[in-house]
């Protein structure tokens, strides 16, 4: 009985935000106020539904639920069903919770935006797509949610359509993730072709019964996952995506798009566990990304960009945990870190939005010391940074400990790579988290040299209560959420914890020591030219542009070949036909003698043919 209740809750959890998005989008122009109210209320409702789902989900095994009914496409069976088990119900809860926080926060943050209602409707749609990916039991549904998120990210990042940089960032995110999706789609097609269905349960069964692991398909899907999760070499769209309004950044980075890759790998973990090669690829990508982006995060001089790089680093950690964990662990460490990251990263982004409202921008230069005196903000933001750094007893400490433990337990080459990368990242993360806190609470800010209308004024009155409530709740969760994991069955290995906390504290210490230098910013330890290069993402953008230019040049060559060689035949035929027609037309100018000549010659032809062929 519980499982059928769970099915109903799963259906509702997808249906509610879909309906919310449709209704609020319809209302967005005629009644923006009502539209915003619908978005906010349904988001809270969605959160309550996700709680109901978690309560009712069976402790062991899966609960399935139908959606719009099965499809039969020729030989291919497409059941279009949802599939939910306990770990994914937790992820769904985190997603619904973060979406609810962001919707409530947006009521304040987007209040002055004329297209705020549309923004919130898209956030609902985005949430629905992410929940579909989390709850999907069918590769096709996963793909639908995945692609809708890609489209939604384009709309959200490019929300400020009046800014050229925003439009460019949206296009860049869209093109990069779409490009990577080629692999994702091919991987899904390969899996469906091998098994004759898109139903996950059947696919697991198929490959669980001794069939060779579908390594090619899994690696192809990794390409798409690398695109969405910002793994090297697709990492550069995420820092640019900071052009979107801060709630959009919180959404994309907190619990949805970027984490979707983790969700899919976690969902397909039974398959990935079988394929050492696919997991090695994932381990190498994740290890490289997590260290590289942690370094980049330390050097950024914009709080949102710092958070963006930190997201990539943390998501790579989740994927690293999934790549390293032994098969019997079921990838729980990666999913736990996803949930914990969703909480503290949403907190940090929403806090950054508040900071931007105070300082008139997100550059550290504007925000120096701005956090002082805003009550709940410095405390919560500090807790968020502590969670990011993995300082006990925060939620980040517990989940990061799980990642380290998973990597230590793994016996593959990939697991070793991930383990060392994780240690390095823990150190670097503590450094940049400390740096961010120190810069925000000390020193004197610059005044913004021009007033930017696109920034929201700081919250006052009831909106202050709302924003402070959201931020405070997230801060509290960052502090005590770890306990929830422990209740759920996570356990802390004292040795592991001691090592990772020690490394983190070392990072804090180094960062603090560097901040004693003149200037107060630990990042000033870097040389001038290095610091400048990191601000433009080390020119990755130019590499992409070069790649695109190469493709275009190749296309030009192909077009020229096509025109000159392939098309020459039909064009020659056409002009030949026209020329012959013209010549024949000139020969027919109504002169009776030529006509007679033709008749006589024709008679001759027919005679010869007739006599020659009649045998």
């Amino acid at each position, binding site marked *: 009985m519980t499982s059928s209740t769970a099915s109903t809750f799963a259906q509702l959890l997808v249906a509610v935000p879909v309906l919310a998005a449709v209704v609020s989008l319809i209302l967005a122009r005629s009644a923006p106020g009502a539209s915003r109210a619908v978005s906010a209320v349904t988001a809270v409702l969605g959160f309550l539904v996700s709680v109901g789902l978690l309560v009712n989900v069976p402790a062991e095994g899966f609960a399935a639920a139908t959606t719009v009914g099965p499809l039969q496409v020729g030989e291919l069976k497409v059941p279009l069903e949802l599939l939910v088990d306990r770990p994914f119900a937790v992820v769904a809860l985190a997603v619904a919770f973060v979406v609810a926080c962001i919707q409530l926060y947006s009521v304040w943050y987007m209040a002055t935006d004329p297209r705020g209602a549309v923004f919130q409707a898209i956030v609902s749609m985005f949430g629905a797509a992410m929940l579909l990916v989390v709850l999907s039991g069918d590769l096709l549904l996963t793909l639908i949610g995945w692609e809708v998120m890609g489209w939604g990210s384009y709309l959200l990042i490019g929300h400020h359509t009046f800014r050229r940089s925003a439009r460019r960032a949206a296009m860049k995110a869209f093109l990069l993730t779409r490009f990577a999706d080629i692999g994702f789609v091919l991987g899904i097609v390969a899996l469906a072709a091998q098994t004759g269905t898109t139903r996950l349960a059947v696919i697991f069964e198929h490959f669980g019964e001794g069939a060779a692991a579908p390594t090619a398909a899994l690696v192809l899907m990794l390409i798409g996952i690398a695109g969405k999760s910002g793994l090297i070499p697709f990492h550069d769209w995420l820092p640019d995506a900071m052009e979107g309004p801060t709630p959009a950044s919180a959404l994309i980075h907190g619990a949805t798009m970027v984490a979707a890759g983790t969700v899919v790998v976690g969902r397909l973990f039974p398959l990935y566990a079988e394929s050492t090669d696919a997991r090695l690829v994932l381990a190498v990508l994740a290890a490289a990304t997590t260290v590289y982006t942690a370094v980049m995060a330390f050097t950024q001089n914009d709080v949102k960009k710092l958070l963006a790089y930190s997201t990539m680093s943390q998501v790579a950690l989740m994927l690293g945990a999934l790549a390293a964990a032994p098969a019997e662990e079921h990838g729980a460490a990666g999913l736990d870190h996803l949930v914990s990251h969703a909480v503290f990263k949403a907190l940090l982004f929403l806090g950054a939005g508040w900071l931007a409202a105070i300082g008139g921008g997100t550059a550290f230069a504007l925000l120096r010391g701005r956090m002082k005196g805003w009550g709940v903000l410095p405390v919560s933001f500090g807790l968020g940074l502590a969670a990011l750094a993995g300082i006990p007893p925060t939620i980040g400490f517990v989940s990061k400990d799980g990642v380290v433990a998973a990597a230590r337990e793994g016996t593959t080459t990939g697991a070793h790579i991930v383990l060392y990368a994780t240690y390095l990242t823990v150190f670097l993360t503590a450094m940049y988290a400390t740096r961010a806190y120190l810069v925000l609470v000390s020193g004197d800010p610059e005044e913004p040299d021009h007033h930017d209308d696109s920034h929201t004024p700081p919250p006052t009155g009831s909106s202050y209560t709302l924003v402070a409530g959201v931020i405070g709740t997230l801060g509290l969760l960052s502090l005590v959420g770890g306990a929830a994991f422990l209740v759920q069955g996570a356990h802390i290995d004292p040795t592991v914890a001691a090592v990772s906390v020690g490394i983190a504290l070392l990072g804090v210490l180094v960062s603090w020591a560097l901040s004693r230098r003149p200037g107060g910013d630990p990042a000033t330890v870097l040389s001038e030219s290095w610091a400048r290069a990191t601000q433009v993402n080390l020119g990755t953008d130019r590499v992409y542009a070069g790649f695109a230019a190469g493709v275009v040049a190749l296309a030009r060559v192909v077009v020229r070949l096509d025109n000159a060689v392939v098309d020459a035949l039909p064009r020659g035929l056409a002009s030949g036909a026209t020329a012959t027609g*013209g010549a024949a037309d000139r020969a*027919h100018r109504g002169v009776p003698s030529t*006509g007679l000549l033709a008749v*006589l010659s*024709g008679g001759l*032809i027919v*005679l010869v043919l*007739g*006599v020659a062929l*009649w045998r």
Partner: protein
Amino acid sequence: MSVSVDFVVLLGVLAPLVGALVVLVADVIWPRQQRLPYVLAFVSLLVAVWAPYQALAQGRGDTTSTLCLPSQPTAVCLYSVSSASALLQVVAILGAFLALLLAWPSEEHTPADRTSVMVMLVLAATGGAVGVAGAHDIASWIIALEIATVPIIVLVALPGTKAALSGAVQLLTTSLISVGLLALAAAMWFVATGSLLISADTVLRSAASGPTRALLTLSVVLFLAGIGFKLSLAPFHAWTPTAYAGAPLPIATFLSGVSKVAALAALIVIIQALSSLGAAGVAAVAVLSVLSMTLGNLVALRQNDVVRLLAWSTIAQAGWIALPLVSPSSAATRAAVVYLSAYVVATVLAFSVVVAVVARYGQVRSGAAAQIPGAGIADLSGGLASGRMIGSYSGLLRRSAFLGGGLALALTSLAGIPPGLLGLVAKVGALRPVLAEGWWVLAVLVAVNVVLGVAVYFRWFRVLLADDPAGFTPGPERAHPSVALAVAIGSALLLVLSVMPAWLTNLLG
């Protein structure tokens, strides 16, 4: 010797010929009547269609015969109509009817002194066309074929303009050669078979010995050359564009419809008699057919005058009509008849629309329609103003869905692409005997011509959809009721037969 005569069976031939006489007599009694000759002609055509209509109801392989000689062992009939030839007769009568509808006098111009002559000639030619489909002896076959041809020469010459006369002279000179060839062929036939009858029996008998077989071969080849002229098969086609361009439009319509029916009917009579001999005898048909198609399509591709385009299209289509006859089977004959029917309906419809558009331009030019909105007379110059240039049809589909739709249907049917499915079905049917005989080279050449044909008709079709250059073409077309009726009949036939092509093929059993 007693000959049995069944006048009801002969009605298809007799009614038009008697009608022609009545028209002349009526002209003597009530001279310079504008409409009376037409009414008489319609009545006689209506009577004439009764006989083939009856014959169509018979089963496959049956014939309705008359003029039978009581010879041994079986009676020999000089006039017999199978379901295929009955359909040809119906199409001939329908073509004559539609051509007369197009010629129906409008209020403005009154060449009343020639009306009855014109109608009389049309009826006579129709009678000849119907007769040749049923003739089964060389004498009446040649006479019927000439009755179907000679009036057309006069009809082309009748307006007396320079273009008309030049067309008529072309027609006359080639026609003379054709008659000569046919007469020679008839003589050889008689020598080879010792009989004037065109039947499988006589052919088999003469093919048995070497010398007569050679004579028969020559005879058949000469027949083919002579009929090639009537059917506008290349290289006997040279008269076609000149005659079409010079003749009045209703006569060109008649020429492209009824005259082709007569030619195919004549060819089928000969081919059917040869069917006992096997395939090789008609190899020349394949050469003429593919030559006509290719030349017709290539030159049609370069025409800007729609009448000349239709003339060259007729040459190309003649190749298609003759194509199935490379196989001597009765299925091939039926395919040719179906193709001809589809071609006649589509071509006559295209001509009907051309008549309507040309009349409209004439109205605008004469200033009679000065108050019609959108008539930018000042801009009309040169060929465009005659309504005979492709450019004159720019945006016709937007201006008049009736005329534009009819023309679009006709052109797509001629090209053999949807929505003109009738043309497609006919083309497939015409190719089937070729494939059955295994003539792959021919099939490939024909396939190339399918593409060329689409290009030819699409050139015109594309213009129909174009945006009308502002004020360049006259406002909303409203065709004369008789022309509108012709367009309506043609469109309805094409539409119905495109939806249910089986209806036409089932008629042949």
